[in-house]
């Protein structure tokens, strides 16, 4: 970004920063209070986060500040580290946060940004759901104006209805509870139904801000009417009036105790995971498709966390919700993060008296809403759609996280995912033996600009990073074909990751296609479902469950008027008249596509090479066209692979006069040299020279055309069909002109 561009985009980023700060203010306050720390702690972390990460970070449109995932951890630390003394606990927790900041920076220096990618998708969803539920469950009573309770979140979840009855019972008697509770409920309603209010001016202000305005408005209303605000004073935010009293310093007395370090490590690991996942997600939102340097961001976040902890604030992470608002407001560089921090500082310095009129129940409503979004029941439905085992992983991870803690939850969730893979494939050795082996090969195919990536053994969250680093090294502007034919098992996380790459490549002008998945059995028809080749029922699946490639072929066929059938077809014996298939027994044929214009038939053919099944099955996509009139039989191939067979049959390499390039690049042979030479007119040779072709063979009344020695991606199939049409046309023109010659 040039200097001029930077200056001209300042107003946009300024405004975006302002809007984000409107959300960050109530969120920061509520997150801090929920963590058992003074309300300003949230603001401190947002200010420090915004400034430091804007200056040192490696991402482009992210917003940094306090996050959701560590609220419960921090609260536990505050209550236990001080041995009952909450203030002491707070300062000890600050020490843990500062140490965590150093650890996070270290992770960035060690380039551990890839760490987050090891956790399977469903386990992460389960963890997020558990975080959401704990948040919700903890803040629910506060929202209703009641006291927060202690105890296991799981038990509290079950006792949620009791909280409601408690409110209903105590509200009529206590005006404070009634007022606070009603305010809380109304705030929740505002948040829940925000999108239903279709007023343009209303939508300009984000809903959490409306909640603040409502609370403040109510307080002023009481003041104007001369009534005392019924809500008890201790149920309000209590912001200090001077800057000095907002800043607290950490107490490092416990530095030698494992208790402090365990909190620090938890904050570092979970905070990094939350940030890394958010950075990845925000990269997908960036309209300019820029790729962030996650490790640089981690280093910046670590420094920010350490400074924030030192000044009394919460830990700093990259937050997805505020970042997405940032993107929606058309921010395009890190200055919006900086401005969001600055605006928050202004609010806290000059508007603290105003903010003191906001009761905690309103803030609690914001958190209940956030928790609800994280643990939305629709996520369960989404998980089932992918596969039953994903639902199991999600629920198990949630329950474990709720009853123990986040780290135990995510690790056990990962373990459960691994066990589910063992069960599905019934071959644990497949994973254990090949876990540390490289399984991804990538190279640029000759004479084309496309890259071929082959994945072997298995592809799951355990070794996904290998595939990802190859794809990242190729670059999103290139054409890539990923072949899973040699891969026996592909899990949900891998399918999801491949989909993400398909999307991100598309946006930068490249393409990613997958081949070789059509024979894998899947547990559901969802594109992210686990693909498994280790069980026996491989043929049945072609008919029921479409792979993405088959879906694309089907769509393309509809668009261009071709007939498409994914099912196995009976093997046409005329295929064996081709020299190519002479020693290759065909096992089966599927994904048949018929082009009415050229009468060409495109098929995926699975065959064995050599006798005694010396090899695994090979697969190739071939085009066959039945000709109306006979032409001489010939074999034209680029690499002379069929040369030896022809040499045995007595046919040498033919050359066509006047076409040196063609003669050099292609091997042409057949039983009638003169007729073949006259068939290969200038136009035909030109057509063949200008298209990447692997093999063209004529058996006299039928043509066999292979573009590559493997399965083709849908785009390549389209090119093959068009080549077939041009070939037929050129042959037809040749026969007309040669007939004319003969008749002359």
């Amino acid at each position: 970004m040039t200097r001029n561009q930077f200056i001209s985009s300042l107003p946009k980023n300024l405004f975006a920063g302002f809007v984000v700060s409107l959300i960050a203010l109530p969120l920061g306050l509520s997150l801090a209070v929920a963590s058992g720390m003074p309300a300003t702690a949230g603001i401190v972390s947002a200010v420090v986060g915004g400034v430091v990460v804007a200056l040192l970070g490696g991402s482009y449109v992210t917003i940094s500040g306090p996050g959701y995932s560590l609220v419960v951890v921090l609260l536990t630390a505050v209550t236990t580290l001080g041995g009952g003394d909450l203030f002491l606990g707070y300062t000890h927790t600050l020490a843990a946060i500062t140490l965590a900041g150093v650890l996070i920076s270290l992770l960035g220096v060690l380039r551990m940004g890839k760490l987050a990618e090891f956790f399977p998708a469903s386990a992460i969803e389960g963890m997020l759901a558990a975080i959401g539920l704990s948040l919700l469950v903890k803040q629910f009573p506060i929202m209703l104006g009641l006291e927060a309770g202690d105890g296991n979140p799981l038990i509290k979840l079950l006792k949620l209805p009791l909280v409601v009855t408690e409110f209903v019972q105590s509200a009529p008697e206590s005006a404070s509870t009634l007022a606070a509770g009603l305010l809380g409920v109304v705030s929740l309603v505002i948040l829940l139904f925000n999108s239903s209010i279709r007023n343009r001016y209303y939508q300009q202000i984000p809903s959490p801000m409306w909640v603040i305005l409502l609370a403040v408005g109510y307080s002023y209303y009481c003041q104007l009417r001369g009534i005392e605000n019924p809500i008890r004073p201790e149920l309000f935010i209590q912001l200090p009036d001077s800057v000095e009293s907002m800043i607290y310093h950490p107490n490092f007395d416990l530095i030698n105790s494992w208790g402090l370090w365990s909190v620090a490590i938890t904050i570092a690991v979970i905070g990094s995971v939350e940030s890394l996942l958010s950075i990845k997600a925000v990269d997908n939102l960036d309209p300019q498709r820029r790729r962030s340097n996650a490790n640089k961001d981690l280093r910046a976040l670590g420094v920010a966390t350490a400074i924030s902890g030192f000044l009394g604030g919460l830990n700093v992470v990259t937050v997805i919700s505020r970042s997405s608002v940032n993107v929606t407001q058309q921010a395009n560089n890190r200055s919006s993060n900086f401005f969001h921090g600055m605006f928050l500082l202004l609010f806290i310095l000059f508007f603290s008296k105003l903010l003191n009129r906001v009761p905690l129940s309103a803030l609690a409503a914001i958190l209940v809403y956030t928790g609800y979004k994280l643990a939305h029941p629709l996520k369960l439905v989404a998980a089932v759609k992918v596969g039953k085992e994903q639902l199991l992983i999600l629920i198990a991870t949630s329950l474990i996280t709720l009853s123990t803690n986040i780290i135990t939850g995510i690790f056990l969730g990962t373990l459960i995912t691994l066990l589910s893979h063992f069960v599905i494939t019934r071959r644990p050795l497949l994973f254990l033996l090949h876990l540390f082996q490289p399984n991804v090969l990538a190279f640029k195919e000759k004479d084309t600009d496309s890259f071929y990536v082959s994945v072997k053994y298995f592809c799951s969250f355990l070794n996904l990073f290998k595939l990802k680093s190859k794809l990242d090294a190729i670059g999103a502007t290139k054409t890539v074909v990923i072949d899973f034919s040699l891969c026996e098992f592909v899990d949900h996380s891998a399918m999801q990751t491949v989909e993400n790459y398909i999307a991100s490549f598309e946006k930068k002008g490249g393409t990613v296609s997958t081949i070789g998945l059509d024979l894998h059995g899947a547990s559901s028809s969802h594109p992210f479902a686990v693909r498994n080749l280790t069980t026996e029922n491989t043929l049945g699946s072609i008919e029921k469950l479409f792979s993405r490639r088959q879906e694309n072929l089907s769509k393309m066929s509809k668009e261009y008027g071709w007939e498409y059938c994914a099912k196995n077809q009976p093997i046409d014996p005329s295929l064996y008249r081709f020299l190519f298939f002479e020693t290759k027994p065909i096992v089966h044929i599927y994904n048949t596509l018929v082009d009415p214009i050229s009468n060409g038939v495109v098929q995926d053919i699975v065959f064995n090479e050599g006798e005694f099944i010396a090899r695994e099955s090979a697969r190739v996509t071939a085009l066959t066209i039945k000709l109306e009139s006979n032409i001489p039989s010939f074999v034209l191939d680029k690499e002379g692979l069929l040369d030896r067979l022809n040499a045995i049959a007595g046919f040498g390499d033919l050359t066509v006069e006047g076409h040196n390039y063609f003669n050099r690049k292609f091997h042409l042979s057949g039983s009638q040299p003169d007729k073949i030479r006259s068939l290969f007119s200038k136009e035909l040779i030109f057509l063949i020279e200008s298209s990447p072709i692997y093999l063209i063979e004529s058996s006299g009344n039928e043509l066999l055309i292979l573009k590559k020695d493997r399965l083709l991606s849908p785009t390549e199939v389209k090119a093959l069909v068009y080549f077939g049409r041009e070939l037929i046309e050129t042959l037809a023109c040749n026969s007309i002109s040669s007939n004319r010659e003969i008749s002359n």
Partner: protein
Amino acid sequence: MNQSLHQHNPFKRMLFGFAFSPSLESNLHEVVRLAEFFDSELILLHVGEKTEEKQKKVSSIVDATASSSRVCEYHWITGDPHTTLLDSTESLSIDLLVLGAVQHESLFRFYVGSVARKLTRSVKCSVLLLIKPAVERVACKNVVISGFKTSTLPNTLFQAFYSAQCLGANKATIVEEIANKSVKVIVDDDRSLIRSLRKKRVLEAEENRRVAELIDQLPAVLTDSISVQKQAIFGKRGYSIGHYAEVTRADLLVMDAPVKTSLLSRIITRDIEFILSDLPSDLLICRAK
């Protein structure tokens, strides 16, 4: 056969250690055929005692092959299989040791047994590992050669092309594995990606030039009518070439012998270990004598 070709024969004496297993017949047919193609003398060795019956059985199978005259010596030595074969390759001046691989339960995967694995590392001559010996010949069309830069590469290329020519292959692909380390650019974001791609292009061009020079230095009769291609692949050195051979369905894979055979490097499993545990095709490991 072709005299001008066979004058370059690097495998004048071949050794095959045979056992009385169900695959004895196909093994013998295969090695005799190989000896014929390479124009070599074949020495058959059995680790165990000689008996009249055993000799008769072996001789009858050999006589049934098309080129039984290739077998010039039989040896019957008792002792430890590994040391026996190792010593014999020395004492009998063997140029090429032929060993068989074992089939996995899944039928399409082959791996090298422990004795063969040890021999592969310890012998001082070239080793040929066969995956599916058959009574009737399966044609060899496609040879993949590792172009990894070592001091013995010229010799490896020589042996590779001699074998390819004798076996009647049409195509030889010389694979240059460009390790990520040599690219030396860590891809973090867009800028570093462009740098990395540029560096890879430069490396690939350098490798191509180096290999082309070496091939030009080979006798013309070795490269005659074989289509030579170069392919750069990016991946873990030693492993990727096996995967490539599998993907392109190569019939023969030719590599240099591993130089560092210390215990440590074997524990950290690199190079040939990966390929030995999952052979994609017949494997020729070349050594200069």
